[in-house]
């Protein structure tokens, strides 16, 4: 009997274990980077809480926008106008907040404008059968130009630029929102909501299906237009939250607000393990993991190379690029196709 039991003992599945490790690799990388970061801060006797606060502030807006954008990427689409959308909605939101003093309106208007701009992208592309990426390129130019016009005409001039600044009484009103606790709670609620929609509703399932095999999905009756519009609406929600938190944090809007968001979203979600072509392997938490990982890595590099002259910023970026490719390579090692990917 024992012999039989022994023979029936399940063998260790190396493949399963490997697959699990690969899947968890972005999370493991985040944990290791975080540990390493804490060690470096400790060794240098830096204020850990202040640095972590700075990290949260660096990453929050990126993670909010990128998490919403996951729905677009799941469909295998791109949106390069996210940064411009964040800028434009922040401008409108700030102007409304200055006029009304209502924090609720700040958030509502930012979200409505961001969702509206996102939906406009989706509608134009879907009604006129345009490639989505090119539509977003056009929207990038239009939104940036409109935002610049508004800032220059409605803002105040100072030094070398124009900006729309919040007066001190309105800044003070925002103080309770500009705290780590509020930001973590907001981030947590948003992430949970997106996880729920992505993993436990038809919306997420159908979007993964569309991203994986559009023809097949269409034949089963899934409407590409409808779910495209839903994806952009959800992305707009992320952008709106991100832009309102930008105003809460920076207390000002200028033409360079959210300037780095556009491309950073790509980096964050891919770094977090999201397949760029979308589909079933898409993970809603990729933005969270990738956004924080990338910023921690950059912060570590800046500390390590702090004393280098001139070449520091370039070296940090080179190393970031190498790490980026390495992490993405390892994370997708199980998913190699025979032919070159496109």
């Amino acid at each position: 009997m024992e012999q039989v039991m022994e023979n029936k003992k399940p063998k260790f599945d190396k493949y399963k274990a490997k697959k699990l490790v690969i899947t968890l690799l972005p999370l493991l990388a985040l944990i290791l980077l975080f540990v390493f970061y804490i060690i470096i801060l400790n060794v240098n006797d830096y204020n850990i809480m202040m640095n972590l606060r700075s990290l949260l502030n660096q990453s929050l807006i990126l993670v909010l926008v990128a998490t919403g954008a996951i729905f677009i990427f799941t469909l295998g689409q791109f949106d390069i106008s996210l940064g411009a959308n964040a800028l434009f909605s922040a401008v409108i939101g700030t102007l409304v907040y200055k006029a009304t003093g209502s924090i609720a309106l700040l958030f509502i208007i930012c979200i409505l404008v961001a969702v509206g701009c996102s939906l406009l992208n989706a509608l134009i592309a879907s009604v006129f059968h345009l490639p989505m990426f090119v539509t977003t390129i056009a929207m990038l130019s239009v939104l940036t130009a409109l935002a610049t016009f508004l800032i220059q005409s409605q803002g105040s001039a100072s030094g070398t630029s124009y900006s729309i600044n919040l007066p001190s009484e309105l800044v003070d009103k925002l103080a309770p929102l500009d705290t780590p606790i509020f930001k973590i709670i907001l981030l947590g609620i948003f992430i949970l909501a997106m996880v729920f929609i992505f993993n436990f509703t038809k919306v997420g399932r159908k979007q993964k299906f569309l991203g994986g095999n559009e023809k097949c999905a269409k034949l089963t009756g899934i409407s590409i237009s409808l779910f495209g519009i839903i994806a952009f609406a959800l992305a707009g929600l992320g952008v709106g939250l991100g832009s309102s938190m930008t105003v809460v944090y920076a207390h000002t809007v200028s033409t360079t607000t959210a300037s780095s968001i556009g491309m950073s979203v790509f980096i964050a979600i891919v770094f977090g393990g999201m397949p760029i072509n979308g589909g079933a392997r898409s993970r809603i938490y990729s933005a969270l993991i990738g956004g924080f990982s990338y910023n921690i890595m950059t912060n570590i590099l800046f500390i390590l190379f702090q004393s280098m002259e001139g070449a520091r910023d370039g070296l940090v970026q080179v190393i970031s690029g190498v790490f980026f490719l390495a992490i993405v390579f390892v994370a997708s090692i199980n998913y190699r196709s025979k032919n070159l990917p496109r």
Partner: protein
Amino acid sequence: MEAINKQSKAKDIRKKAFGIFTIPVLVIMAILIVCLSSGQMILTTDVSFYGFTRYTAVVLLTTIALSINLSSGRFDFSIGSLSTLSSVIAAKITYAMLAGSGASAPVMLLISIIVGAVLGALSGALYVALKLPPIITSLGVTLIFEGIIYMISGGRYITTETSNASMIFFRESWWIHLIIIVLALGVIYLVFDRSKFGFNYKALRAGQNIAVNTGIKEVPNAIICYTICGALMGTVGFLQVLPGNQIATSVLNFGSIGIMFIAFLPMFIGGYIGKYTNDKIGYLIASICISLLSSMFALFNTKTITASIQSIVTAVLLVGFLIFLNNEQTCKDLANGTLIKKIIKQYKEKKNRGETNDKPQE
């Protein structure tokens, strides 16, 4: 029979001529209207003319470079950083060799092309080695190239290595720009339309799996594509130095990707014109149109509003043209006045098939 053949041939020629010349004629007409109404004219001085030829070359080469990979499903963000890095390395090497004297410009051009090709090959090799989606590889390569540029230059404008009489001569010689255009077109035509490599490239583009299964080697093909793109962008990098005899190297955090966007509109226009002729001729015509528009925008440089208006106009043109391209038949029906009839007909057909929401009649 002969008459019928002659007629259909003539119709064919008219159709091709219409397809090829409509857009450039419309662009020229629009420019003339704007110029005449503002009392100014473009390309009235030597400076503006050789600026026009140089920019045409830049747009053309960038468009070809982008389209080579993009039409094979390989999106490449790194072409901007590649062009800047090629010109930076070429400037440094040329200055080390010649100290700004003699034939600095042609030497720098040659080295820029070679360095561009090498960098492109490296980028391609990385793509085939890692087997990651090309857009991801290009993101990483962009970060690396931009970082290297910054490490070499410290983010400063490179001027000493690029300010010399030879560069000024190249800037002011419109015929050199034309030679570059003609040579580039010739080489690209021969390589992609008249060589085995080109046929393999088109086969892979049309059907990757089938092409690979028939024995076409995809990996060397991809690497050569990236190499050719690199050489083209190396040339662009050199041409970008000419206006001010300087290289702006503070391009961290994807500051270099902007050049890619100037190629989208000419790529689509060129693709459309290419249906009636060779697509390279289409790209050339489109690049000339874009360059003319850019010269026109420069006339309104006296007003602040120019930059914003320019971006919006370009964006509207891009979307407008794409709407036309993807709805060509609908646009033709609209022009013929048959669109409404078609919509009604389609609706009736749907109704007959029972696909409408109308309640059935009692």
